[in-house]
């Protein structure tokens, strides 16, 4: 992705950002609130169209008209504000947009049995025991929903998996679970884009780190090239943090 | 030359009976060389009609032709219009007496209660004792008066005999069917215009009562004339809407041009149309009748 710009009316959310992901690596995108992380990945996943700039996928320039195009190209996204519909059942949510079909008398019907089985199976793999595939997503906890969303993206064989702050609302165990899942997915050769505020979470799984600030990239670093403190500083904008850090004992 | 008149009715937009009125004023306007406009409250709300009369008066026409659907509501706007120098003729609903009280020149039309009463007497003469009155617009007081008059003419209580049928043909048809099925001993049916008469005809055809039950209706229309011809409908009360619209325009124009005015009110109805002499009526039903 090169020099992506995105303006919303009078707001310039992205002022030229370049970024790339390779298969099997986890590239972390870090940045403060409003840095433009969500906007950037929305552009990548076809929700927004870039005001300027180009997207390359496997070397070819892509033009995503809507999220379907991106999904078809193999870019799966778990959005910050979950892509789950509370009133619908887990299995319908799981297959939303990718419904399995089965021909009956020439008519293409939804293969509900198959969908239910796969859902139960995949959920069990992720450690979630559903009451049944018809259980509404609205009855799941936040962490469980997050897990469903990730499981779905992985199941549909995404080549690139984008996770927008998957851990921010999660407890310790759920976070570990999600990070472990990312690790597993990466090992399967999928490129993962992981977005977070939390430097520690990022360092736990990231191979490369890009920091975004006010709609611009501040640079990319490889794992091991950068210390948590440096990363923290980059995100927060540097020196001014010192005084606060002092009074809070450097624990942030 | 080129006088301007406004006709204000009380009917909602969709009431098809008023087509004849519109045709009547159009023809009269053309023949007399005057401009006539038609105005009505879109939902049939009489309070809105009062505003329309006010508004018609404000636009300064030479004359206003209006119905007197509710004396209480309309008396003030009409007499105000009269007082500001506009000549008014009352048409359709109302009575000669009420027309005089609001200061109108005259009354052309059919007093609703009287028409219903006359019909009731006629039905009584034909030996009827119980009836169903199909009211397609129960909010309109004039229609209730017709039913009430009919009941009084028959000498029975109105009571449950008036059916609030709604204006949708399917609803009318099926409600009539339901009523007749629950009250099979009903002697007579009275419908209040083509809106309720047409589906009622279909209903009677469907339950086999066509030609068997005594059927009278107000006003004429294509289907009603056919019904009269085939004997399903005994009579239609023709209040001659064409004349109600045409005559006031002609009278007003002549009054304004030459100062001549008939000395009496004109009762354009009720006239009972029966199977005799239907050809002309058949040809123009719904357009000039």
């Amino acid at each position, binding site marked *: 992705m090169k020099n992506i710009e995105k303006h919303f009316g009078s707001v310039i959310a992205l002022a030229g950002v370049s970024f790339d992901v390779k298969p099997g690596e986890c590239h972390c995108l870090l940045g403060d609130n409003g840095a433009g992380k969500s906007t950037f990945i929305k552009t990548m*996943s076809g929700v927004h169209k870039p005001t300027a700039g180009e997207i390359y996928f496997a070397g070819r320039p892509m033009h995503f008209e*809507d*999220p*379907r195009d991106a*999904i078809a190209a193999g870019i799966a996204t778990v*959005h910050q504000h*979950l*892509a*789950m*519909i*509370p*009133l*619908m059942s887990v299995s*319908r949510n799981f297959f*939303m*947009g990718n419904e399995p079909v089965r021909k009956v008398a020439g008519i*293409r*019907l*939804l293969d509900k049995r198959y969908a239910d089985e796969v859902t139960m199976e995949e959920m069990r793999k*992720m*450690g979630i*025991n559903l009451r049944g595939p018809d*259980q509404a997503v*609205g*009855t799941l906890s936040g962490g469980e929903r997050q897990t469903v969303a990730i499981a779905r993206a992985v199941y549909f064989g995404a080549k690139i998996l984008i996770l927008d702050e998957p851990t921010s609302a999660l407890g310790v*165990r759920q976070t570990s*679970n999600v990070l472990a899942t990312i690790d597993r997915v990466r090992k399967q050769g999928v490129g993962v884009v992981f977005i977070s505020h939390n430097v520690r979470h990022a360092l736990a799984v990231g191979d490369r780190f890009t920091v975004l600030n006010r709609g611009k990239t501040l640079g990319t670093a490889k794992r091991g090239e950068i210390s948590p403190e440096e990363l923290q500083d980059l995100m927060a904008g540097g020196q001014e943090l010192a005084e606060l850090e002092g009074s809070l004992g450097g624990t942030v | 030359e080129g006088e301007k008149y406004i006709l204000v009715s009380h009917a909602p*937009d*969709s009431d*098809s009976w*008023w*087509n004849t009125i*519109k045709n009547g004023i159009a023809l009269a306007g053309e023949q007399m060389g005057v401009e006539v406009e038609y105005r009505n409250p879109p939902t049939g709300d009489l309070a809105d009609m009062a505003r329309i009369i006010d508004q018609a008066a404000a636009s300064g026409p030479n004359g206003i032709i209006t119905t007197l659907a509710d004396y209480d509501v309309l008396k003030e706007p009409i007499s105000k219009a009269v007082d500001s120098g506009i000549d008014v003729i009352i048409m359709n609903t109302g009575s000669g007496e009420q027309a005089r009280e609001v200061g109108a020149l005259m009354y052309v039309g059919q007093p609703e209660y009287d028409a219903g009463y006359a019909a009731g007497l006629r039905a009584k003469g034909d030996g009827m004792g119980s009836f169903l009155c199909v009211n397609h617009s129960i909010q309109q007081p004039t229609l209730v008066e017709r039913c009430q008059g009919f009941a009084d003419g028959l000498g029975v209580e109105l009571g*449950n005999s008036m059916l*609030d049928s709604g*204006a*949708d*043909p*399917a609803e009318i048809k*099926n*409600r009539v*069917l*339901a009523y007749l*099925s*629950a*009250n099979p001993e009903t002697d007579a049916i009275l419908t209040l215009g*083509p*809106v309720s008469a*047409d*589906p009622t005809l*279909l209903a009677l055809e469907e*339950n*086999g*009562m*066509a*030609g*068997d039950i005594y059927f009278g209706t107000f006003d004429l229309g294509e*289907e009603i004339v056919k019904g009269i011809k085939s004997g399903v409908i005994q009579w239609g009360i023709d209040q001659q809407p064409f004349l109600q619209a045409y005559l006031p325009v002609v009278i007003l124009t002549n009054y304004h041009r030459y100062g001549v005015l008939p000395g009496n009110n004109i009762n354009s109805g009720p006239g009972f149309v029966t199977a005799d002499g239907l050809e002309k009526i058949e040809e123009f039903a*719904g*357009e000039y009748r």
Partner: protein
Amino acid sequence: MANATQSTAKSDERVKEISAIRKALIRPELGGIVGTAAVFTFFLLFAFDSGMFNSQGIMNWSVVSAQFMIIAVGACLLMIAGEFDLSVGSMIGFAGILIAIFSVSYGWPVWLAILTTFVLCVAIGALNGWIVIRTGLPSFIVTLAFLFILRGFTIFLPQVIERKTIIGGVSDAAEGDWLAPIFGGKVLQGLFTWLGDAGMIATFERGANAGKPVVDGIPMLIVWAIVLIIFGHVLLTKTKFGNWIFAAGGDAEAARNSGVPVNRVKILMFMFTAFCATVFAVCQVMEFGSAGADRGLLKEFEAIIAVVIGGALLTGGYGSVLGAALGALIFGVVQQGLFFAGVESSLFRVFLGVILLGAVILNTYIRRIITGER
């Protein structure tokens, strides 16, 4: 991952027990089923000997319910997709007038008039949807505007063209047409004649039809209602597209992010609603042979009421076509039943209001149990 599995198992300790029977009963249609049972029990008790349940009586309320069903199916799918359409009633009037103008005033063959009307009305439905999508306005406002616009044209056009607000003579024009019977005809007439001859259903005793069965066939209106219900039900529960309808209504943004073509779904549902309204209008015009400017008044509310009685959620994302059909049945039976039972007819509205409230409260309770909503 053993720990996670275990944790979920443990979490059940915090859920009180819900009995299995209760669980089995709880489905979106439950409210409709209970309501239907209640309504039939009531009328069987209080109006049994009024003729409501002889062959004619049954046909009577079936036809009325079928009418409601036709518009309710469209309104139901649209409501589940998260929008609603207040212009249904005006669309019915408009479609009827168009057919009459084309076939009577312009003298086109009736099949051409019908097909053209379908195309025009479905296109208006698409326009409705397009405006809602493009402007992001609530469909309440957009379709309210079309309620007025279409009704205005419905009154204006016949006056300009025919100098009438009611256009008759469609029956004569439809004589011998191949398409007209599909909307206005009857089926299974042979069966009913046979039933009549066999004495299984009553025959006319007097008049022109003496000897013929009182019910001489199933009107196409009922056939259309059944076809549309089956179509709607299969579409909603058994196809990919049905999943998209739920998704679009449940959370349009989330659905869009997951690759559901939400705009397409919504516009198609507006078109389908317009299609159902047009079916209603064509059946009515073919049955009564005339089109009037007042047709379809308030039908939009009746459709919404049937759908809501049938358990759908006004805000979208939840509902069932079978429920809506049952809602329409309840509506039709209550409406006609009150006339059979001889209740003062102006009280019909009061009953309708009370039933609506009762049904919705019941449905809300059922839905909360199903979805675990708070």
